[in-house]
């Protein structure tokens, strides 16, 4: 047994939690969970050196520690600041933090295109969530937005820099998962862009993971682009015996068809296990996989819309009150031939079509 570490106490939004020394404020807040956890656009716990750049996780430190209870003069990036014993942190209880976060969201959005209706990330986009929670209803920016040319990063990955918020996650991913760094940042300031310099393909067994780490729709899966909206798909946990990776994935079904394969993500939207390109791009048949069961999706996510997990069906009270079952005065199907009650809409592989009702077999 390893020697026991002394836990230290930290208070975040009036909730005290005990954590190991060396934990960041953000991770301590994530242990509490809920709204206390600051949003993070660039920090990724699985990537070394990530964080500190987007500034959405700024928090106020009202007391540095028991030993030195002075407050910190500026808001600090909670993902890169470690907790001290007796530290008092204010996140959503601090007006300064709320105000600063509003500002950051505005900065992130001024050059972000409003193309959510055609963006594949919509529905699982961290920037969408962030702006719903902290954004203003309108923009104050009156100038043309920054645009870039689209880049092809090989046969599987599309880079659309216009949507990028420069979180650097993909750069860290490529740097830490692959043998050599193949892409990085060119230029600086507003014109900074993720690039391979002269259009090169990103070529590595694990490079597909850059799609999963991207918080916005800047890096998208070319085998899935424009195929479907994520909220029409049903995510299912599955695995296969993969020689390269853990093989634990999520399959995104519509009907019987697997539209895409992604890594499994935890409640903070972070990948649990990196998966290889073969699992992600090549295995798009349900037969390739052992299906474990539906993925639990947070009920606040649009992906869980219409999936009423754990819903209690109200009990019929009419027989109890009236002493008998209600009588149907008229069954619409007995007088109308428009609808066909034996056709269960939810069992159709796609949207309903008149062919389905006219007795023509769906091929």
């Amino acid at each position, binding site marked *: 047994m390893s020697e026991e570490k002394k836990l230290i106490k930290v208070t975040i939004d009036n909730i005290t939690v005990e954590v190991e020394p060396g934990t960041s404020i953000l991770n301590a807040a994530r242990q509490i969970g809920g709204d206390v956890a600051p949003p993070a656009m660039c920090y990724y716990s699985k990537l070394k050196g990530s964080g500190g750049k*987007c500034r959405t996780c700024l928090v106020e430190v009202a007391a540095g520690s028991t030993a030195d209870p002075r407050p910190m003069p500026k808001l600090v990036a909670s993902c*890169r600041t470690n907790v001290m014993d007796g530290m008092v942190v204010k996140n959503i209880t601090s007006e300064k933090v709320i105000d600063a976060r509003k500002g*950051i969201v505005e900065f992130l959005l001024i050059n972000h295109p409003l193309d959510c209706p055609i963006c594949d990330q919509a529905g699982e986009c961290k920037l969408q969530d962030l702006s719903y929670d902290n954004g203003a209803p309108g923009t104050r920016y009156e100038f043309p937005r920054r645009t870039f040319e689209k880049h092809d990063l090989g046969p599987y990955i599309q880079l659309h820099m216009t949507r990028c918020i420069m979180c650097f996650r993909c750069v860290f991913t490529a740097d830490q998962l692959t043998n050599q760094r193949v892409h990085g940042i060119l230029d600086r*300031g507003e014109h900074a862009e993720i690039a391979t310099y002269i259009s090169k393909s990103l070529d590595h067994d694990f490079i597909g993971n850059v799609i999963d780490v991207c918080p916005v729709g800047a890096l998208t899966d070319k085998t899935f682009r424009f195929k479907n909206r994520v909220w029409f798909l049903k995510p299912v946990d599955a695995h296969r015996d993969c020689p390269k990776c853990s093989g634990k994935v999520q399959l995104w079904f519509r009907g019987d068809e697997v539209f895409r394969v992604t890594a499994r993500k935890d409640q903070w939207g972070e990948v649990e296990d990196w998966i290889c390109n073969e699992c992600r791009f090549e295995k798009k048949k349900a037969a390739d996989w052992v299906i474990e069961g539906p993925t639990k999706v947070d009920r606040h996510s649009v992906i869980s819309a219409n999936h009423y997990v754990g819903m209690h069906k109200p009990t019929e009270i009419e027989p109890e009150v009236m002493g008998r079952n209600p009588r149907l005065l008229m069954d619409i199907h007995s007088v109308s031939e428009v609808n066909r009650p034996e056709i269960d809409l939810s069992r159709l592989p796609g949207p309903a079509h008149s062919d389905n009702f006219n007795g023509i077999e769906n091929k």
Partner: protein
Amino acid sequence: MGRKLLLEKAHVEGIRYYDTYRREGGYRSVEKALNTMSPEQVVDEVKKSGLRGRGGAGFPTGMKWSFIAKPEGIPRHLVCNADESEPGTFKDRYLMEFIPHLLIEGLIVSSYALGSASTYIYIRGEYAWVADILEQAIAEAKQNGWLGKNIQGSGFDCEIYVHRGAGAYICGEETALIESLEGKRGNPRIKPPFPAVKGAWDRPTVVNNVESLAAVVPIINMGGEEYVKIGMGKSTGTKLISACGNINKPGVYEIDMTISVEEFIYSDEYCGGIPNGKRLKACIPGGSSVPILPANLLLKTAKGDTRMMNYESLSDGGFATGTMMGSGGFIVLDEDQCVVRHTMTLARFYQHESCGQCSPCREGTGWMHRILRNIETGKGKSSDIDLLWDIQRKIEGNTICPLGDAAAWPVAAAIRHFRDEFQWHVDHPEESQTRNYGLAHYADPLQVPVTA
């Protein structure tokens, strides 16, 4: 006539070369430090001198040195920040160009104090010819036994390397400078860890400005206690000021921080007044990122005292009515200058130099520049002024490095003190394209509240 410590010999014929420099008493401080003092004594002497960092922030140099971690078996580094890119500041260039051996001498003593066997000068890429001068001076020093192994028989080894930057203002920020020195993209690091613990190649590192390191030479020569006697209060020693703008005698001046701002602008010894009989409108006393002040607040503090050329007096009143000493880039604006245009130029500079790493600075600097350009070209709205204020407020303090603050402060100060001029641009879009707002009331005497 103020006392000179750094530039006293700068105009002796041939002082750029070793023989003349040595004949004029150069390298005495190295002899003194290496032969008679321990590294701790050198640090103590610098602490006693009260020397404040000359790069802009004014942090006490001795204290910075005492923070350096000393883990067993890990080399430490001293890095000289010669990436002088602040608009209006050119004092380090002058010093390195005219009297390069002074810097080399200061570097050897400081390296000895910090235990740095490999010391680097990170020089701005645009100063190509200055880098050549420094390399020549280093070669001369090495030939004469002031660098290399076992310097002057003291057992101390030291080498100095000149590293040329590639033209980025951000590389003057110490952690970006270290990244660039390591051969990476010059993005500032997130602190902590501070460079004193993990700097270049993760080794303890101290980064100091050229002038701070050069000032170590007179401190060792005369002793810290003597050095404190020069100057005023916590502004000890002498400071190089690079004066430019609407003055008769632009150039680099060494002041002992006991003169008033008024004397500095108007006396013949220094700037020599404003040309063509124009009146003073505004001034940025410490390089482009410090707040601009109108003439009335520049010459007198809000309390009615005379404003002096030192750290405390210039920052008297905080940002509401004061400014900062900064890096000593003294920019004078006469009555014909347009503050809006001037602020726009600075905003454009910071937009261009933002590294693009963190969101507020990357997006906010460009936004501020575009709004200022609209106001300047007569397309502004009244609400734009409030918007500008809100943007700068949301950048300041929320960024990784001080470039965000440096971009926000000039805009904030311009709006704070010159709001009328911004409003006039908005209200008179056509007139503002043909003439300037002029001096207006910016030099009127201030109402000093009477204290009972």
